[in-house]
């Protein structure tokens, strides 16, 4: 017997703002962010955890929005690409992606930027192997990854110069 799913009231902090939403159990975090909140910077590619384009930060850690039920994120802190730049000023990672030409079609870029941001918070001066490990779940069909690697290294060295 299939029981009737019921909506659940969910409180989420997204990019610093608190939202109260009634969501169905089967709604994923990326669906809620895109369809309910309008944060279309969260890109859903494969929908099965293989491309990384739906990556968002939950409690500061990168996770896949397509494989996380929204109801499992109750009272969690969620960050998307829209919450990165403040008053039009890009973050060092965004700036480095721009300067190094690591952005082409842009579909993978939000996920790449967020995963790189989490990496640099954890490892301010990462090796190339650590960058590869952090970005291994992100597919890009435009840049060939070299520019992205350069951008993350550039962001790390820019931040080190400022320290």
């Amino acid at each position, binding site marked *: *017997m*299939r*029981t*009737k*799913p*019921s909506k*659940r009231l969910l409180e989420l902090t997204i990019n610093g703002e608190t939202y109260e939403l009634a969501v*169905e*159990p*089967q*709604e*994923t975090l990326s*669906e809620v962010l895109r369809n309910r909140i309008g944060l279309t910077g969260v890109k*859903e590619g*494969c*929908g*099965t*955890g*293989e491309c*990384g384009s739906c*990556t968002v930060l939950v409690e500061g*850690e*990168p*996770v*896949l929005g*397509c*494989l*996380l*039920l929204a*109801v*499992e994120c109750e009272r969690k802190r969620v960050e998307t690409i829209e919450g990165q730049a403040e008053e039009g000023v890009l973050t060092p990672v965004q700036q480095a992606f721009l300067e190094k030409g690591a952005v082409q079609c842009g579909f993978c870029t939000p996920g790449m930027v967020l*995963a790189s941001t989490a990496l640099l918070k954890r490892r301010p001066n990462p090796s190339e192997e650590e960058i*590869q*490990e*952090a970005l*291994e*779940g992100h597919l890009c069909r435009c840049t060939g990854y070299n520019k992205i690697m350069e951008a993350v290294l550039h962001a790390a060295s820019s931040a080190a110069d400022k320290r």
Partner: protein
Amino acid sequence: MYLPRFAFEKPTSLKEASSLLTEKAVKSTLLAGGTDLLPRMKYGVADPERLISLKGLGVSAPKVLPEGDLILDGASTLASVALSPEVAENAPLLAAAAGRVATREIRNVATLAGNLCQDTRCLYFNQRHTFQFVEPCFKRGGDFCYFIPKGKKCWAVYMSDTAPALICLGAKIQVEGDGAGALLDLEALYSGDSLHPLTIGSDTIISGIRVPPTGGTRGWAFSKLTLREGMEFGALNIAVLLETGKDPGTCTRARIAVGAVSPAPVRALKSEGLLVGGPFSPALLAEAARQVAEEVTVIPHHGYSKWYLTRALEVEALNALTRAVNQLTGGR
């Protein structure tokens, strides 16, 4: 790609979760990390009526008991296992294996018990069947195998990276539910049947994993063969754990487990027997690696031929054994 509709419960105790699972009127499935379950639901090859989330139960940090056993919560994420100082010190083989599962995004959510309980995989089964295939295969309730059309059974393989490592370490699992509070050898969890790979019932929860201390001096290695590194299921994986007594050159205990080539992780018992007692030498390691490839019957899968996997298994076994011995002898 959307999920089908289902009901959702988030119990706050193991007892409540067990009781929900035993309600026969509703087809329920446990939801831990969901990184294996949710794609199968999106593909339409798993269709539970209700998901019972384990997120409400909380997670205990890894701890070491006075007798040396390492206790892990079944709901620990793979990232937390891979990065835990307690695991790195007491079971570095497990930390290495957990760190090789999928990607950091997945490891941040996927759980250790979930990784041990993942379903078997097949190139044909793990796809959307609605537009690609018509005939249901064994795994979907039919009597047909796309991989071997004349075959009489399912040929899907079990892919976990952490299972071979934990089997080498002699891990036990704490089972709640129909086996109420039982402590089982991890090896006994696997049936060897692709259709029903686990021996525990669907109303059972793995609440913890207990890893006994390694005796003597240990050398270990975990190898996972993928063509592109990064995020891929393994063509094969192999975990090796060697122990020595006072003489670092002589093996007192050997464990070799191979994964991703059959419906369950496989111990290479004859090869282990070759290693025990004998002083390590290049000739012995080569013979042991050859023996691994001979005694482990591989199922060709995901485009890898049987010939390739058998040859690759010998090469990976030799690499892993050499690395483990180098740890014991300091590279001598």
